[in-house]
């Protein structure tokens, strides 16, 4: 069964450094998402992306964050200058439509630890 893949599985970074989290969505999907889950808390929406532009973003997704689809398969989340509070599990998801007729499928996540 096709799946969303994320790399790396764990990233440890010094505060203030830039990180790039990578995702390969399911191949025929067109809608891509990033979520995060701080330890012990709910999964929170960050951003959705379609047709090479952001469709919607949450209040969490401030100027420190950016997303990109650099080629036909990868979807990346960049955090420019990491803070301690960015430590979380980051999940990428993809879906075949935007209307909610198809579910979002999630990757295994990248655990980001900021020191």
């Amino acid at each position, binding site marked *: 069964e096709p799946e969303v893949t994320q790399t790396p599985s764990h990233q440890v970074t010094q505060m203030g450094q830039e990180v790039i989290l990578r995702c390969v969505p399911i191949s025929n999907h067109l809608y891509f998402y990033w979520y995060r889950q701080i330890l012990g808390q709910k*999964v929170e929406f960050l951003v959705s992306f*379609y047709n090479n532009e952001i469709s*919607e973003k*949450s209040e969490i997704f401030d100027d420190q964050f950016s997303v990109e689809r650099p080629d036909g398969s990868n979807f990346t989340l960049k955090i420019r200058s990491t803070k301690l509070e960015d430590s979380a599990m980051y999940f990428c998801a993809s879906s075949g439509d935007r209307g*909610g*007729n198809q*579910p979002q499928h*999630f990757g*295994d*996540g990248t655990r980001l630890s900021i020191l």
Partner: protein
Amino acid sequence: EDKVVQSPLSLVVHEGDTVTLNCSYEVTNFRSLLWYKQEKKAPTFLFMLTSSGIEKKSGRLSSILDKKELFSILNITATQTGDSAVYLCAVGVYRAQKLVFGQGTRLTINP
């Protein structure tokens, strides 16, 4: 503010028991309700519900939605230790490109 609340937060039962997990929601422009199972890593998709009263079933798992009372339940019959996981309820909101998640229910099945 859109809100999804799950109960109980934690549940411990014996293998073979039947469990019911609850999810209530308050969102503007409801589109769909989804259930996911989260073990160590990715939330894996279980069900998507869009219409009231139609039960979705997969093996020992079933789910139903009540759009009038704004809740859904997930039933698991004849539980097995492999059912131990966190079960997440999420609501898709019309037009918005996002899922709003509940806190999850941590289900532990003891042999």
